[in-house]
């Protein structure tokens, strides 16, 4: 459905992307994972034809999706990373306008989506919160039943309950055969919906992997608080990979082998265990810091 081949774009600042290639098959939810500034949005802009690549090609549904390919876009739904609607309109007014531009009768589906996402579409856009704008954006991206949906950081601004609704929406659309490209800087967001994901680092692809494989590769940090510092010290010498020891507090890094952690920790009295919040670089240190040992 979406084929990206050798996409390259250098900016005068020296940043950009180089030689990005991947394919999202029909009915697949393809994740695009990378920290801020890695080149996710640049790749999406090139796919959408907002910029001209220095090299490379984008094919959507078997057709070249260059700058001039206007009608390929009737098959594409798009949610920008930073949403900006037109001035002086209500949410519904904007959706009606965009529906007319998309040249598809999308009224019924539009109403269903508005119902699903639970927002008052008649609110003027300038009075909308970030989360509400995001909802209007999601409706705009899905209402015309596109074959390919490109979502740039889709869940920013949505509360956890709405994130869940959003995940359900994607999975429903997927069952109907819709292809998704979903970019994110958070692995849990990708994990819930994607079949495969590409990891992008400094403008280059570090890996394209099955989501199950990525799950086993991710490295989680746990913070253990022991009763006393001696136990903490003894525990940290028991062969478990510890990220830091501070008095009775130990931070442990686990990659797949949760069993060993539980066994080692069970020998000492514990006060608490917490999963530490992590950014993408910590989860996939594998790709981000120690590239030389990457497979």
């Amino acid at each position, binding site marked *: 459905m979406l084929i990206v081949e050798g996409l390259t774009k250098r900016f005068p600042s020296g940043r950009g992307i180089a030689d990005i290639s991947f394919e999202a098959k029909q009915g697949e939810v393809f994740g695009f994972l990378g920290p801020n500034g890695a080149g996710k949005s640049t790749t999406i802009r090139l796919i*959408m034809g*907002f910029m001209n690549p220095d090299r490379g090609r984008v094919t959507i549904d078997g057709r070249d999706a260059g*700058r001039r390919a*206007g009608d390929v*876009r009737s098959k594409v739904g798009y949610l920008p990373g930073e*949403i900006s609607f*037109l001035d002086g*309109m209500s949410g519904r007014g904007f959706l009606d306008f965009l529906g007319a*531009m998309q*040249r598809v009768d999308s009224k019924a589906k539009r109403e269903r989506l508005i119902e699903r996402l639970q927002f008052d579409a008649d609110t003027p856009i300038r009075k909308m919160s970030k989360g509400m704008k995001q909802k209007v954006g999601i409706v705009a991206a899905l209402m015309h039943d596109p074959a390919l949906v490109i979502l740039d950081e889709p869940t920013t601004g949505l509360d956890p309950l709405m994130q869940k609704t959003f995940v359900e929406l994607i999975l429903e659309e997927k069952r109907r055969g819709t292809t998704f490209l979903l970019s994110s800087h958070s692995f849990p967001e990708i994990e819930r919906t994607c079949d495969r994901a590409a990891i992008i680092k400094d403008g280059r692809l570090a890996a394209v992997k099955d989501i199950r494989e990525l799950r086993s590769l991710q490295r989680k940090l746990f913070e253990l608080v022991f009763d006393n510092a001696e136990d903490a010290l003894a525990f940290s010498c028991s062969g478990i990979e510890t990220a830091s020891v501070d008095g009775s507090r130990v931070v442990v890094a686990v990659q797949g082998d949760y069993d060993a952690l539980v066994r080692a920790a069970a020998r000492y009295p514990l006060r608490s265990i917490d999963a530490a919040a992590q950014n993408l670089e910590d989860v996939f240190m594998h790709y981000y810091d120690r590239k030389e040992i990457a497979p």
Partner: protein
Amino acid sequence: MNVPLLRRMLTTHSRVFLNYAFGSAFYIVLMFWLYPSMADNSEALDDLMNELPDGVVNAFGIQNGFGTLEAFISGEFYGLILPILLTIFAVSLATQLMARLVDRGSMAYLLSTPTTRARVALTQALVLVIGLILIAAVTTLAGFASQAWIIGDGYPLNAERFISLNVAVLALFFAIGGVAFLISSLANDEKRATGLSGAIAFGMFTLDLLGKISEKIEWLRSLSLFSLFRPSDIVSGQGAIGLELTVLFAIGLLLYAAGIYGFAKRDLPL
């Protein structure tokens, strides 16, 4: 061209169109209303003007004196007020139609639909031209209406010359609008687009004014599109205006085409 976009943009900007159109209409009504009292003292005013340096008279286009209604409005209104009003209108609208949408990111939505960039840009250019035509038309109608209702037959208005005057001002701002549109199409930053096209438009206006003041620097006028618009010559019936109109129209078309082409080709920071 894209019909839903055109309709949307006309709705969005309709209030601004009407504000400028009525502002201009109000001013021309005011001028017409003032005219009889001026005309009755026209000899005294003509004497006063003879006291003024030739350059100043020239610059403000009042060399035709206050003898006829067209002569009176051609200097004050068409030579100064309306050009300033339309320059502000053209610069701000052209910036809003292209550069603002790119700067804020809304352009991403327009371009994510099955239309081409060229069509989006052409539609936006059309919105600007429609706005200019509307203002010129309302101003012309207001002129005729106030001649008929306010000042009456005592002071006739030469309809042909008055219409020529309005067509000429429209042609001038078709071209000035083209300058602003080209800059707006190529700009990523709204403020920079306003600043640059404002500076160029008012710069040309000033060059024309300076060139008219002194013969020594008259060459300055050749740098300005405003020199192709001579309201005082039109109302005194000197020479044909066909050539100027054609040149302004051709320059305008070229500028809009360049804007559309440039916008279709360039990288957009969306």
